């Protein structure tokens, strides 16, 4: 299987000198869904911000055969779609439509194509009809879905999501998991919502202290109680029941 993402020996220090990533090695195969779990401050968001060159640490990153370098940055940002945790950071335009069209417009597509992609992305997240709404008139769940649409409209090969289910009520969360199930591109999902990780991700990487502590089948990682508790996490109750039976 070809790799969508290869990371070797990635180091990153915060501007104040604290180490955020201390030698991360990770491979994500094309088409797979990879979960990233870890306690607060483990470096999950920092790692995700490296995947499209927003942050640049020391080390080697390859995205679909492209090396992370300045000259590849434009192509990499078309390949990797990054959904931020707070939809208020992602949705910055005056209308939902403008926001969803922002990415495609930066890709220099024809206006008809841009409009088509924006409408299609909004349909995919069940937000058709909200085109002319202002983001601050939407509910949190709606904003979360609109934020995902702003990335889907760019048709990325790799979808990267930071805490997609945080602050959602159970129904909205269920709805979002179903939505992510239906998106078949390579996905990388960082979250504390271990139930969601267990449902969506084939493999999971456990990140702590800026290092990958373990990578493997999601059930094996999340089901390892000792490993989980040693890293400030816990095996989700649903998974425990499944392991016992």
């Amino acid at each position, binding site marked *: 299987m070809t790799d969508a993402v290869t990371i070797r020996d990635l180091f990153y220090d915060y501007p104040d000198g604290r180490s955020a990533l201390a030698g991360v090695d990770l491979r994500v195969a094309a088409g797979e869904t990879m979960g990233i779990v870890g306690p607060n401050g483990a470096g999950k968001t920092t790692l995700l911000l490296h995947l499209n060159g927003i942050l640049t640490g020391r080390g080697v990153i390859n995205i679909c055969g492209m090396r992370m370098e300045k000259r590849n940055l434009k192509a990499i*940002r078309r390949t*990797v779609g990054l959904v931020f945790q707070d939809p208020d950071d992602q949705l910055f335009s005056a209308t939902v439509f403008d926001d969803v069209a922002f990415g495609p417009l930066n890709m220099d597509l024809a206006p008809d194509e841009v409009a088509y992609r924006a409408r299609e992305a909004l349909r995919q997240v069940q937000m058709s009809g909200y085109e002319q709404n202002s983001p601050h008139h939407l509910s949190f769940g709606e904003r979360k879905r609109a934020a995902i649409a702003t990335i889907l409209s760019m048709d990325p090969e790799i979808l990267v999501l930071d805490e997609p289910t945080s602050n959602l009520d159970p129904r909205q969360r269920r709805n979002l998991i179903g939505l992510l199930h239906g998106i078949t591109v390579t996905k990388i999902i960082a979250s504390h919502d271990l139930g969601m990780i267990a449902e969506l991700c084939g493999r999971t990487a456990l990140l702590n202290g800026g290092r990958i502590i373990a990578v493997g089948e999601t059930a094996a990682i999340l089901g390892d109680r000792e490993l989980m508790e040693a890293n400030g996490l816990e095996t989700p109750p649903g998974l425990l029941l499944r392991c016992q039976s």
Partner: protein
Amino acid sequence: MQHGFIDKYSDRHSPIHSLDPRTKLICLLTFVVLVVTTPNRAVGAFGLFGMVILLTVILSRIPLRYVLKRLGLIVPFVLLTAAFLPLVHRPESGPGDSLIVWGVTIDRAGLLLVQGAAVKSALAVSAMIVLTASTRFPVLLQGMERLRAPKVLVMILSFMYRYIFVIIDEVMRMQRAEASRAAGGRTWRRVRAAGTMIGSLFIRTYERAERVYQSMNSRGFDGDICTMHRPALSTGDLLFVVLFLGGTITVRLWGAA
């Protein structure tokens, strides 16, 4: 949380609402220039300008009370800056040109200036209120963009509209958190708490700006703002421009005569 939006009545339907934003912007700018350049003594002209505004308010179906309320918020600021004009002594004014109240010399020409400033600002501001209340803000921004207003300016306004409520929400949350713990603390303590709040609000806003910029970069932003263009002006727009500009320019010329 609930906020009063400046484009509160923009979802209504009326002849004014259906105008192209460019039409409204051009009419507004011309109106403001005409009003400001009208001589202060032309009271009749100002009355007619007022009638024009009243007519657009009626046409737009925006409650007159709303316009007056917002006007009441802004005009005092103008008056405050104009209030000192009569106290300035002009060398050209003779002894009969000034009154003395409580030992303070007040210049008559200065009084006329204050009156002019009040009337002109009230007219200009109410025209702007009608514009912003009858146009959805994003549409207004599109209009500015298509009139080739500097893109950076349009972008700044768009960010302002998008984030002002996010920031107000943050302030309200901080105030609630403060109020729930400050059970009748000393005033000085509360003032200090307010100072810290302003500081942390600044930092939060700054950090948010960084994240927003990151999310723009993630979607291929490279400093150029690309936008989509939409259809041309209708005959209704042309009719409105001709009538509005024809009327107001006539009033202005008559006022100067």
